[in-house]
């Protein structure tokens, strides 16, 4: 057999592996991965706070399996996510979280093909999340050095404008007032609550690391915040946040020190919900989901679309009520806070954080 003989079946295989489509140009993407900033503090959080670090590995699975099921199994996604996957996550994976970070491409292979650009935005922001934990957990760094390292980590993150979220706060209208909005929170209340609880912990863990003045205080604070997260799990979705947790409410000291990071994480978590809505909303044709995801992703990267003032973002966060967002992550009472809003409540604000019109609860 020679090369020419093999070429025919090889070309046939190539043709079989490529899916015919009319918009090949729109499918050609060159987004790429990049190493995270090498520094002495790499993996310090993993070493010093292994229980919390492992939970984040489990969270990665939860985020990824959500998108994969919404995209590939729209007909039975509700049953799969609200029952089977939810049970797996809360009774097995969160109890025995993976030791190593997971390959999200392997958990969400078909979603990753749908919108690799958005997937990499999440991954790049998750790298930032972890690098910030590493800086705050590094006991060799004093406050000044931590501040310098945070700026360095942020600068490196922003060096990828094709992946980085804006440092300008975005109005919640981007998340809650689009034609596809609210589909996920309404159709998947348990899983949506779990995702908000994930986000609560992901931003909430910054606070004990910042307010703790000694290593013992930081260790105890992180353990308490993780325990608080676990307290939310029984009886779901009752214990979960009823609106999206905002960093300025859950981690106010962290936010005061590094507001740009807090804004980035809010934009990240907001876009998580947007993609969930686009995937979950049956009114959005499958052929339009990629374009809508990319449009939303661009809106969360730019510094102009639906931007709020920083003061307005803080005001909006305060009006939403920390007790509705899962409660504070340090100095909390033994019982979970009692929400004053119904689950999924939608507030509307202008760019200065002033409330607009009557608040609407979408059932």
């Amino acid at each position, binding site marked *: *057999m*020679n*090369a020419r003989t*093999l070429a025919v079946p*090889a070309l046939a*295989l*190539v043709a079989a*592996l*490529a*899916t*015919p*489509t009319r*918009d*090949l140009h729109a*499918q*050609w*993407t*060159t*987004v*790429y*991965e*990049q*190493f*995270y*900033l*090498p*520094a*002495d503090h*790499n*993996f310090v959080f*993993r070493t010093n706070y292994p229980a919390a670090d492992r939970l984040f590995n489990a969270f990665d*699975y939860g985020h990824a399996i959500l998108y994969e099921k919404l995209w*590939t199994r729209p007909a039975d996604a509700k049953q799969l996510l609200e029952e089977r996957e939810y049970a797996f996550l809360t009774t097995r*994976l969160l109890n025995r979280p*993976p030791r*190593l*970070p*997971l*390959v999200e*491409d*392997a*958990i969400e*292979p*078909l979603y*990753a*093909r*749908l919108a*690799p650009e958005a997937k990499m935005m999440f991954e790049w922001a998750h*790298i930032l999340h972890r690098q910030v934990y590493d800086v705050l957990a590094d006991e*060799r*760094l004093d406050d000044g*050095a931590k501040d*310098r*390292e945070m700026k*360095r980590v942020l*600068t*490196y993150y922003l*060096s990828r404008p094709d992946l980085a979220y804006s440092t300008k706060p975005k109005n919640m209208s981007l998340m809650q007032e689009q034609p596809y909005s609210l589909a996920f929170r309404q159709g998947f209340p348990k899983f949506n609550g779990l995702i908000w609880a994930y986000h609560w912990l992901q931003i909430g863990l910054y606070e004990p690391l910042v307010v703790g003045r000694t290593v013992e205080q930081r260790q105890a604070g992180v353990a308490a915040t993780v325990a608080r997260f676990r307290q939310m799990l029984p009886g779901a979705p009752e214990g979960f946040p009823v609106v999206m947790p905002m960093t300025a409410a859950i981690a106010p000291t962290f936010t005061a020190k590094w507001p740009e990071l807090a804004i980035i994480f809010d934009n990240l978590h907001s876009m998580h919900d947007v993609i969930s809505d686009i995937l979950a909303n049956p009114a959005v044709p499958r052929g339009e989901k*990629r374009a809508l995801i990319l449009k939303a992703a661009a809106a969360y990267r730019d510094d102009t679309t639906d931007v709020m003032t920083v003061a307005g973002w803080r005001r909006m966060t305060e009006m939403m009520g920390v007790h509705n967002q899962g409660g504070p992550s340090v100095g909390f009472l033994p019982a979970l806070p009692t929400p004053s809003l119904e689950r999924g409540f939608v507030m509307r604000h202008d760019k200065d954080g002033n409330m607009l019109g009557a608040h609407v609860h979408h059932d």
Partner: protein
Amino acid sequence: MHICFRASNALLLIALAAPAARAQTDFYNTDRGRPLRTEDAIVIERRSFELQAAPLTFQRVLRGVSHWGIAPELAWGFAPRTQLEVALPLAVEDDGTRPRALVAAAGLEVELLHQLNTETTALPALALGAGVHLPVGGLAPSRAIPSVRALMTRTHRWGRVHLNGAYSPGDDLALSDPGVADASRWQAGLAVDRTFVLRSLLVGAEVVAQSPLVADGQTEWRTAIGVRQQLSPRLAMDAGIGRRISEGDAGWTLTMGAAYSFAPPGMPGFNRGAR
């Protein structure tokens, strides 16, 4: 050979001296020969380095004829979707005709691999490579052997499919050329792999056809299976076993190795630290 040992040791020292970095899921990004010859069409992350410190391969060519090889390799993601690889293979050949096995460098391999795109719903990931195997050492080919490669990866719900093709232009090698065993005129490989996500484990299998770089060479078919596992955020290990399935002796091949990922902080693109 002495030079090769020093070079490989230097690579190892660079890697061990560097602070930890990301690449926590390296096991998923397969490399040529680690453990399968067919690899995915995905390059390493921009600005990262990956060291294959001591990938070991044992091949039983025929009864009484064996071939050991260690091929330290360093890859650098120096540009978006682009990596440069340098390998320094060292071979131990025992064909039963000498009182002692022959130990020598088996050339210097350099390859540039560029990933054209990222996989989407309609398009697989595609990559192109160009490289050269230089005549450095006693078991190296007698001339430089250039090669070009094309790679494709398609992801499915159940796993991934990889298709690789390679071609080397130029004159045939003589049958007595020390590099003839590793050189091919063309090579085509098809591999599938499946990831066990929660175990950070990848299992793969392949079929490879290749035509030797000699006049009137017969196409050889080989098959192999292998695993890659992430052991720590920086370290992934692999192991594989293969054999010839075309006519002739089985030519069993065993291989195992480890990949270590890092990024020196002083490299361009990384702003300097606070301390």
